[in-house]
């Protein structure tokens, strides 16, 4: 099953990478610019000193990025060259890629403010093809993102195996992750989303392992591993902070009834130490050595830009009052709003997905609840604690991202900082809840058939998304 998942993820990833024209996924130039600055200077880009940063293509980007950007907007929809697989710009890009001047950038693009882990790792594929065309380097980084996606798929499979005893359902949960359209796009793009999704999936797996093993106490090493991985997730993208509630709940579960035991506190200490060391070291380093900044600098917002922590009491009312269109936009952009958010899977398809997924999940949850409250003692095929933890993680992820928007609107006066794809860091938890819920609708003997139905549905959705993308970019 593992081999099948690896084959599915890699072949699908290569197809998605192939069909997207270069720079046609939101913010790819900004993320690439950040990688380029780090790879060329081995430093974090200098902080912005007041000038406005262009959101799409800044004036100080490298000449090769400018040229490839112009070319990708020229060969588009109905304006491709006829009877050739190669355009003149490819020769020029290959030629100038070898000269350091054409790779020089000032690093002043929107990704400047992000933590640096993904970008630092991406300097490896970038460096491997340093003197090749920018096309090769950008696609090499896309392949790195694909590997982060594979990491998330495998972590989902192992986490699902902890939640239920059906390998077929665990496979279906992992396939749901692999084939989800927005996940497929983000893990085929030059984007730190891919890194955050992959590392958060590992954190989630580690949390699930500890929850599934309760009441056995986790070791100090378990704590350190969980802390370090959480720290790495935070160093990849701020969504990593959304893993902290899960860490807190795991700690509380471990502590329950055993708060006097020394090894329990060792676990919590090792975990907290792991997170704090990774998150605190880069800012302290950059304070000690102000310029130039090391490339692993965590570029959190400056103090004056952060407002006070907003009232939690106002949050539920704020969510309730959100415009229907905005909520629909969040759902759509978490399923299939591609490119620079300029085209989407057909609206009616999305509606059907939403309705079907909601209905099936509700049905599954009802079935699970019935099994729990039924007086007849019977052995459950899924484990209560890991499944409940997955459900908790999924919904905490949604609340965390919505809270980020609430905070930005109320205290920073910025609207629209989040998109549906920001929820993807908790996709593994969602997939497990959906797959286990659907599996609970039927007796054991039909469970593999349910897994087949889930995988077929997910595949159909993925193919539909591919057809939409090919039609958008290459039709006309």
């Amino acid at each position, binding site marked *: 099953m593992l081999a*099948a998942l690896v*084959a*599915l993820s890699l*072949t699908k990833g*290569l*197809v998605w*990478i*192939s069909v997207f*024209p*270069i720079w046609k996924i939101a913010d790819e130039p900004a993320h690439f610019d950040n990688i380029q600055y780090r790879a060329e200077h081995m430093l974090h880009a200098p902080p912005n000193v007041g000038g406005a940063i262009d959101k799409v293509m800044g004036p100080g980007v490298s000449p090769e990025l400018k040229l490839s950007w112009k070319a*990708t907007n020229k*060969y588009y929809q109905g304006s*491709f060259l006829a*009877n*050739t*697989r*190669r*355009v003149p*710009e*490819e020769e020029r890009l290959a030629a100038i890629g070898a000269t350091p001047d054409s790779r020089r950038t000032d690093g002043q693009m929107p990704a400047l403010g992000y933590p640096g882990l993904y970008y630092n790792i991406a300097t490896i594929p970038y460096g491997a093809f340093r003197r*090749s065309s920018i*096309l*090769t380097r950008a*696609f090499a980084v896309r392949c790195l993102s694909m590997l982060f996606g594979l990491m998330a798929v495998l972590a989902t499979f192992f986490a699902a195996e902890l939640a239920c005893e059906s390998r*077929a359902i665990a496979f279906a949960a992992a*396939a749901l992750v692999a084939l989800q359209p927005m996940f497929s796009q983000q893990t085929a793009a030059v984007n730190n989303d891919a890194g955050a999704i992959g590392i958060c999936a590992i954190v989630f797996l580690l949390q699930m392992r500890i929850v599934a093993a309760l009441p056995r106490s986790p070791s100090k090493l378990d704590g350190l591993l969980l802390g370090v991985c959480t720290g790495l997730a935070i160093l990849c993208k701020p969504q990593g902070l959304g893993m902290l509630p899960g860490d807190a709940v795991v700690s509380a579960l471990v502590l329950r009834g055993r708060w006097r035991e020394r090894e329990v506190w060792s676990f919590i200490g090792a975990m907290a130490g792991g997170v704090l060391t990774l998150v605190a070291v880069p800012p302290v380093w950059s304070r000690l050595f102000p310029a130039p900044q090391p490339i692993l600098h965590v570029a959190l917002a400056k103090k004056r830009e952060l407002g006070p922590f907003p009232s939690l009491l106002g949050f539920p009312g704020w969510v309730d009052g959100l415009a229907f269109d905005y909520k629909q936009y969040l759902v759509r952009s978490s399923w299939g709003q591609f490119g620079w958010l300029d085209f989407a899977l*057909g609206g009616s*398809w999305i509606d059907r997905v939403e309705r*079907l997924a909601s209905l*099936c999940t509700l049905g599954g949850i009802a*079935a699970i609840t019935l099994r729990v409250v039924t007086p007849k003692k*019977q052995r459950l095929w899924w484990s209560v604690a890991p499944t409940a933890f997955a459900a908790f993680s999924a919904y905490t992820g949604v609340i965390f991202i919505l809270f980020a928007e609430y905070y930005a609107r109320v205290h920073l006066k910025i609207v629209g900082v989040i998109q549906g794809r920001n929820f993807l860091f908790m996709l593994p938890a969602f997939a497990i809840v959906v797959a286990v819920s*659907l599996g609970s*609708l*039927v*007796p*054991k*003997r*039909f*469970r*593999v*058939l*349910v*897994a*087949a*139905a889930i995988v*077929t*549905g997910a*595949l*159909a*959705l993925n*193919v*539909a998304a*591919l*057809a939409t993308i*090919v*039609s958008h*970019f*290459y*039709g006309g």
Partner: protein
Amino acid sequence: MVDERLRRASVQWGLLALLVQLYVAGRWSFFAFQDLATMIHKYAATLEDRISQLKPEAFKFPLAGVYISLFALVSIVIVAALLYAGLRTALNPPPNEE
């Protein structure tokens, strides 16, 4: 008696969920292949060229075509294997059936 009724109800619900899922998957696949067929019919000669432009050699056709074929093959094998295993288990339930 109650157990038998519960068993039948869960089988019926399960089959209904499965049929709905397969129906929706079938409809999506139909739309997707219809879209693709229309595109291929309209741009048969140019689609491979268009997808290949401004990409490194490893992501141009014919290699891109190889990836698409492999993805299709892997998908078909996975679905077929799951359906085969699923039908086998459904028709010959293990003795420790819940």
